């Protein structure tokens, strides 16, 4: 673990990413303390410019709602949506990929054809349709994001599992009488973990982007204040009140950036192949 951290630390970008993400997580966690009032409450006059009043450093939106509060509360939602939809798509993609990769043959064929179906329809368009059909709510958004994001997971898992499947320690496990389930869970999956974690960090970032894009098209959950929603709400007034969409946009940018930096750092740290040494 220590060794892993040391390797991770060598990537300056990853450390910066981690710091940014920590900051955002802290912001999300502290939002109810920092801004006890609902972010929806109209607290000042509309279109208050940023830094005009100390109490409202990021200004107010066209309804007189505090943008800073929205950014803080939005962090909770965006992170949650990103995280949960990633977990859900992992829950779909990992088993499908693992089963396809492990058993191969017809099972693999069938599962991969199924995966292809999802990849053949442009993914954002599919997400839009899914959310529209099931009507926007946190659930439908998470499900839609998960449904369009799992195929790459399945493909990654499949190729990883296929590679591991022919590794000798897996064959040894077969010979030692372990059953397929045990082998997949104990022998194979732990070895795909680093690939999964790297992918997951990137997927959280992508999910946050998809959620904000959906909100931009008016397909967000109206009950929660997410960054995507705030930008969506601010975009029509972007020229009178650039700050309304600017700050949450910046928040998304930083978060996604941080997650990608971390993903790269993890990739470097977990992939000793990149550690070059002489023979």
């Amino acid at each position, binding site marked *: 673990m220590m060794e892993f951290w040391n390797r991770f630390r060598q990537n300056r970008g990853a450390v910066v990413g981690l710091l940014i993400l920590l900051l955002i997580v802290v912001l999300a966690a502290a939002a109810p303390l920092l801004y006890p009032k609902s972010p929806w409450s109209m607290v000042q006059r509309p279109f208050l410019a940023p830094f005009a009043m100390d109490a409202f450093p990021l200004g107010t939106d066209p309804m007189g709602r505090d943008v800073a509060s929205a950014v803080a509360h939005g962090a909770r939602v965006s992170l949650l949506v990103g995280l949960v939809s990633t977990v859900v798509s992992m829950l779909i993609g990992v088993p499908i990929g693992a089963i396809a990769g492990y058993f191969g043959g017809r099972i693999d064929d069938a599962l991969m054809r199924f995966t292809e179906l999802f990849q053949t329809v442009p993914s954002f368009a599919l997400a839009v349709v899914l959310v529209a059909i099931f009507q926007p709510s946190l659930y439908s958004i998470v499900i839609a994001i998960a449904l369009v994001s799992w195929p790459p997971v399945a493909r990654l898992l499949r190729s990883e599992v296929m590679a591991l499947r022919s*590794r*000798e*320690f*897996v*064959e*040894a*496990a*077969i*010979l*030692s*009488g*372990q*059953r397929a389930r*045990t082998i997949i869970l*104990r*022998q194979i999956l*732990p*070895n795909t*973990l680093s690939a999964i974690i790297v992918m997951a960090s990137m997927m959280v970032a992508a999910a946050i982007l998809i959620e904000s894009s959906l909100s931009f098209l008016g397909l967000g959950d109206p009950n929660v204040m997410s960054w995507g929603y705030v930008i969506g709400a601010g975009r029509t007034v972007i020229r009178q009140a650039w700050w309304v969409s600017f700050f949450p946009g910046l928040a998304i940018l930083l978060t996604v950036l941080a997650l990608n930096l971390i993903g790269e750092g993890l990739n470097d740290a977990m992939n000793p192949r990149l550690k*070059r*040494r*002489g*023979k």
Partner: protein
Amino acid sequence: MKHETIAKPVVEIERLSVALPDGADRPYAVDRVSFRIAPGQLLCVVGESGSGKSMSANALMGLLPEGVRVSNGRILLDGTDLLTQSEDALHDIRGRRVAMIFQEPMTALNPLMKVSAQIEEVFEAHGLLTPAERRAKALSLLEEVGLPDPPRAAASFPFQLSGGQRQRVMIAMALALEPQVLIADEPTTALDVTTQAQILRLIARLQRDRNMAVMFITHDFGVVAEIADYVAVMQLGRVVEEGTVEQVLFNPQHDYTRKLIAAIPKMQAGMRAPVTSAPILTVEGLTKTYRQGGGLFSRPREVHAVQDVSFSLAKGETLGIVGESGSGKSSVGRCLVRLQDPDGGRVLLDGQDMATLRGEELRRVRRRMQMIFQDPYGSLNPRERVGRIIASGPIAYGEDPAKAMAEAADLLEMVGLKRDAAHRFPHEFSGGQRQRIGIARALALKPGIIIADEAVSALDVSIQAQVLDLLQSLKRDLGLSLIFITHDLRVAAQICDRVMVMQKGRVVELGSGAEIFDAPRHPYTRSLIDAIPGRAHEARMI
């Protein structure tokens, strides 16, 4: 053939040190190494993995990996120090005056370029000849290195050639500009023994014809005996002993050299009493065919990996299966334990046909036949502790986990490791130790038969000898039957009661070790034995 040369050396390496980056396991990959090579002379640099032999070659070529640098010393080529040359001058020298061939002919060629183009490029790099001339030259080079049908080879992509052919292409490329110095970094290690013999002969011939200085890097003393004029033995970055072949191989002074030479398995089957006990395993007409590709319209390509293989294995017997790559020897092993399903034939284990069992029944029978794998790095799950790796078999068969773990510790002791190794992860062990763990795992289920698939091939010779000893003694103590699959005839000769020689999926000869090695009847067996490097000099090595 060996001739002392008095010519002025073309390469002189003086007190060369190559520093490794911070955090490496030792400060210097190469530590104050000196040697010289004269035109027409072949220097073998020999050593085990990690000895720094490749790094010295790379330093000479000026192609050290990033982060690794020469910290001291001089590399003189015809009296000029390469270390002081500009990058530009070095470009000129590489390929023209010093050329290099590598171990992996598969990856050393650009997969997307035709062979001819890759050779022509050498001329292009140095601004020589017209394109048409280059093409003609490439063709004649391919002919010179003995490729059958050179025009076709020239128009091929690397993947369309065999390993030996690719290595010939590499050599053609290296020879293109008639360099003074050729560096060959383990050029035959990845090749089959018969191919290796051909390539060695080719290198020797070219060296003689062109009066080149050759620096030949290898771990194989057989190869050294075969072609070297001069030998330098390296250990942990240092040259521990050097001299002529006579001196180093037949009269080694340094302990390390002696140890290495002693560890080489001897090509003597020795007289063993035939094992007469009843067969525990009988294989009849085993067949396996691989089918590749094939879709709606295309017929799958078929490879007959195993064809009608029959043999039996007596209790307590060691049966060797030898052959070159693609001979089907590994497929036989894998079909026996049903890692692959055979297409035909019977595998009778105590009278029960294992070849057709399925599911739970297969699982029950299979515990009696376990396997030891080739790759000490790939055969242990890096995320499981050693104790668990060994115990998971018995646990899977319903053993109490605590008891299984205790037994695992016993097994670790039995294979020569400490009990507390059980709590550690595989990466904390060396290759040889890992192979011991693999053996312990195979033993955990108390099998009657162990199949060792190239179990010592990836190990350095000194380690190899230890592991072979361990296997021998375990077999004796536990009354095991052993099927030993290997490409290395020396190893087979050393431990097998009987040997089965395979070629292209078929058994060409099956007999006792003495019959096979001392009086081979089949021409293929004979060619295999003849190809073993250094065989002629074996008797003189201690």
